[in-house]
Each structure stands twice: as C-alpha cells, then as structure tokens.
C-alpha cells in the first residue's frame, strides 16, 4: 500500500475522481452529470475488461453480461426486496463474481479464439435465460417504483447519490487495475498473456489465476450495473445485455491502449464522448459505427499500442507516470 502512495498515477486517479465529482456539483449542472456518468460507466467497463484482455490476454466478447446481471440482481434486491441501494449493489457484485467464477472454471479451459467464442455463447445464453425468467419480468424487465427512491431522500437526491457512487466505483476500478498491475498476481497474469504454457512451467497456477481474474473483472461492473439500472428506473434483457456495448468496450480499450491503466480510462472517455457527440449531431448520427469501426481498424493497424503506446514512443519517460 505504501508503494501505491508513491506512484503518480494513484494520485492522478484520485484527482480524476475528484474532478468528476466536483464539476457537475459546481453550478448544479445536471446535464453535465448525465454526460459524465456515462463516461464513468464506460471507464468502469473498459478498465475491468482490460484485466482480461490487456492483462491476461483473453478476449471477452461478453463482458457486458456482468453489468447486466449486476443490474438485474441489484434492482431486484433494491426494489422487490427493499434493501438499501449500496447493500444491494455490493451483494449483486459478490453474487455475480461467484457466477463468473463458476463460468470461468468451465470456459477458461479454452484458449484464444475458442474462449472468445464461448464468451459470446455465455452472453447469449444468459440473455435468453433472463428473457424467460419469470421473477425478473421476462422480456419486459423490471421497473423501479418511486417509493424505492425514498430511502435516498427522493428521486432527485437519489440521482446525485448514485452519481457519486458510480464515480467511486470508477475510481476503485482504476485503483484496482493499478494495484493488480504492480502486484505479483498481475505479474502472473502478464506471464499468462505472453505465453501461458511457459508461465505454467515457471510456476504460475494459470487455472486459478484466470478464474480469479475473470471473477474479479466481474465484480465492479456488476456493482456499476446495479447502480445504473436503479438510476435508470428500469431494466430489460435487451438493454442489460447489449452485445454492441460489449464490443464497443473492446474498441475503447484498443483505442486507449490495451494493458495500461491510463489507456483504458483514456480510450473509454474519448470514445464515449465521441459517441455522444455523434449521436446528437444531426448529420453524423448515422455514421457513429462507421467512424468507430474505422478508428479501430486504424488503431490496430497503425498503432497497436493505442494512444498510450503512441505516447510511450513519443515520450519514453511517460511510462513511469501513466502505467
């Protein structure tokens, strides 16, 4: 922990979270808050996805399944069971992590493209299950009733509370990435990414490491899902398990720089802002996918290290600050 305090990025993450929390409060700018919360969620999803893709070298096409399941569990606990939002979100996070651990022990026996395909299978299968699951409202999903906001001081207050909580989860996601990166555990993951068989021969218990990181990468997205769908007031299977969003997470990661803490945040922030801009721009709204796809193609072809990789080449010493 003491070593964390000496790292510039640790303080930069706290600063970022502070700015996120402060900007919309100043002048009670709710529109900005709504923009920033989407950026924060993109950062949460991308930095946790980075733990699988960037750190461990396993492409997860179905990462959004954790977000959606977290949303369902959180909403169910908070509205049907009437638990406090924070407790609901944490319990949802723990339960989803356990589910991920179970899935992980199965599908992590697969390597490379086979694993990637299996993650798509898991996403579709879970979505199909939830769409038929009666207690969660099948395809129509669940709605939050207005009295669920009462414990948080009414709906208007509840929105601010969820915002600060999401910013907290964002900061935790980045700190988690940073902590893992500098740990022995992270070193083991990197070894698996570079050459799994060699890593095993060097003593890395790859089976356990992969299952743990798969489960860990599920936790904060699930918490964020619980918070976000509570804030949105409803959830249904098509928005909870949006395949496209899962794939866009990969674009964000590659754009920023896979395997780096700052890259995941940078890529997510830039891409989400670009996407929001394109969607509300009358002339470009239809082209956001074309632009995103073209961007991805250019990045992997010309700068496979993403923006951060490019920064490293430009300023080699930047490696010590942005990790």
């Amino acid at each position, binding site marked *: 922990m003491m070593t964390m305090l000496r790292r510039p990025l640790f303080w930069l993450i706290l600063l970022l979270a502070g700015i996120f929390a402060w900007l919309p409060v100043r002048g009670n700018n709710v529109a900005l808050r709504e923009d920033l919360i989407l950026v924060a969620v993109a950062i949460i999803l991308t930095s946790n996805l980075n733990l699988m893709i960037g750190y461990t070298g396993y492409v997860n096409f179905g990462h959004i399944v954790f977000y959606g399941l977290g949303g369902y569990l959180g909403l169910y606990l908070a509205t049907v069971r009437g638990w406090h939002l924070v407790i609901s979100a944490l319990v949802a996070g723990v339960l989803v992590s356990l589910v991920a651990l179970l899935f992980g022990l199965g599908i992590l026996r697969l390597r490379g493209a086979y694993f990637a395909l299996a993650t798509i299978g898991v996403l579709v299968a879970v979505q199909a299950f939830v769409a038929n699951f009666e207690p969660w409202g099948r395809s129509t999903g669940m709605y939050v009733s207005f009295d669920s906001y009462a414990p948080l001081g009414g709906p208007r207050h509840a929105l601010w509370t969820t915002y600060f909580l999401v910013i907290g989860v964002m900061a935790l996601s980045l700190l988690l990435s940073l902590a893992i990166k*500098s*740990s*022995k555990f992270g*070193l*083991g993951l*990197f*070894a698996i*990414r*570079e*050459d799994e*068989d*060699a*890593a*095993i*021969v*060097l*003593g*890395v*218990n*790859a*089976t356990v490491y992969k299952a743990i990181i798969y489960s860990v990468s599920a936790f904060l997205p699930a918490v964020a899902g619980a918070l976000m769908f509570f804030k949105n007031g409803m959830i249904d299977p098509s928005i909870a398990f949006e395949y496209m969003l899962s794939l866009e997470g990969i674009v964000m990661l590659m754009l920023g720089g896979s395997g780096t803490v700052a890259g995941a945040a940078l890529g997510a922030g830039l891409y989400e802002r670009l996407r929001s801009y394109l969607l509300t721009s009358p002339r470009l709204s239809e082209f956001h996918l074309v632009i995103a796809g073209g961007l991805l193609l250019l990045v992997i072809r010309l700068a496979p290290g993403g923006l951060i990789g490019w920064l490293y080449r430009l300023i080699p010493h930047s490696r010590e600050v942005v990790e």
Partner: protein
Amino acid sequence: MTGLLEVRGISKRFGGLQAVSDVSFTLNEGEILGLIGPNGAGKTSLFNLVNGVYKSDKGSIMFAGKDITGLSPDRVVRLGLARTHQIVRPLQGMTVLENVIVGACFGRENQSMHDAHATALEVLEKVGLAKRAYSPARALTLASKKRLEVARALAAKPKLLLLDEVLAGLNPTEIAQMIDIIHSIRDSGISVFMIEHVMQAIMNLSDRILVLNLGRKIAEAPPAEVVHNTDVVEAYLGFPDIVDKLRGMA
C-alpha cells in the same frame, strides 16, 4: 540411499505412438545426468512427463521424497524442479528482468516482488545478462535467450534443473560460456538433468548418461561406458558422424 529424482516405469502414448515406454532411472543429489538419444527418441517427452506438462499413463515420479506423479507443472516448480525449453519461450512483451522476476516469484521460495527483484538481478549477473536487464526479451539474440531461459529457471531456486538443449544453435564461444554457467550451477548445489546433442559437451559435463531410443531406456551409465554400449551405437547407426564422435571420445 534414495535419489533426488526417482522415476519408475513411466509410459506415455499419443494415439498410435508410444512416446515413452516403461522408463525408470534415478538422479542423485548433486549429479549432472545427461539425456541423449536420436531424434524422436522421446527425450523432450520424458522431460514433459517429469515436470508434469504431460500426465503419465503409467508409473510414478518421486522428487525429493515426494510423489509428484500427476502434479501440474506449476506445482512441480514450486517443489523445486525447474526447466528450460528446447525452443526458447521468453515472455516476449516483458523485459529480461521481468522474465526472471516471474521465475523467482513463482518458484520454490515463492518470493515477494521485492525479494524477487533482488534474486533476478543476482541470477542475471550469474548468467552474464545483467547488462541487458531492461531490454525487451524479444530483442535478445538466440544465445542470450538461451541464457534467459536458464536464468528464469535458476531464479526459481530449484533443487533440480532440467535443461533442454541449451547449447543447440550456439557458436563455440557461446557454448564454452554456457558450459561454464552449467558448471557453476552444479557447484552451487543444484542438480542438473540435461538433454543435449552436442556430444562433446555432454560427455564432459555429465556424471552419468541416460540413453533413450524409440521411447525406451537403452543405457544408463557413466559417459565412458555409454560410448561402448552396443545398443547405443546401434541406435545412432543412422547418424554415422555421431557414432564417429562417440567413438572418438572414448
């Protein structure tokens, strides 16, 4: 007295191919045991069985008094049995130092990152790679990559080191340096089990030599005896130059 590594009746079959067939041997503490045999004799398969990459069909493996049959490679290395690969497998995207730190962290002593750093620098010094510590592993020459393989395995603080053709592809100077390294490893108290095609080197280095042919053990004896073993000479008949070398050495 029991040996450090005792292999009893081990076998492995792949489809129609009997890769290793009922092989038994003992490796004593402090010993350098050589492993030779023609191509396809099953040498690397035997290594893979010993360190757990392959699960054996039959037989048992005892290491330092513990039954390690069927243990996965990562557990085997934590018990003190490390190895190198015939085809070098550095963790390409990481630096030389990081590669060795991985070895130290997940090796027998299960070191912390801090201790592993110190161990890694020490080991790199030993194999002569200290100057390249911060280079990316992919940038090394073949000879340096072989040293890196050895360094990584050494960083695990093993009791027994399996070396799979660490001399192959090196020029005479590099071979001489590597032989020095192997000597110093043994001098530091680590036993060595090595596969090698460079006959002169293995004959000089090994205390005893194990010879495999077609998955079977055909000889286990000190180098001087091995070269006179008719089975061994026969096994190498397809390779006249090696037979000559064997003869020449005797």
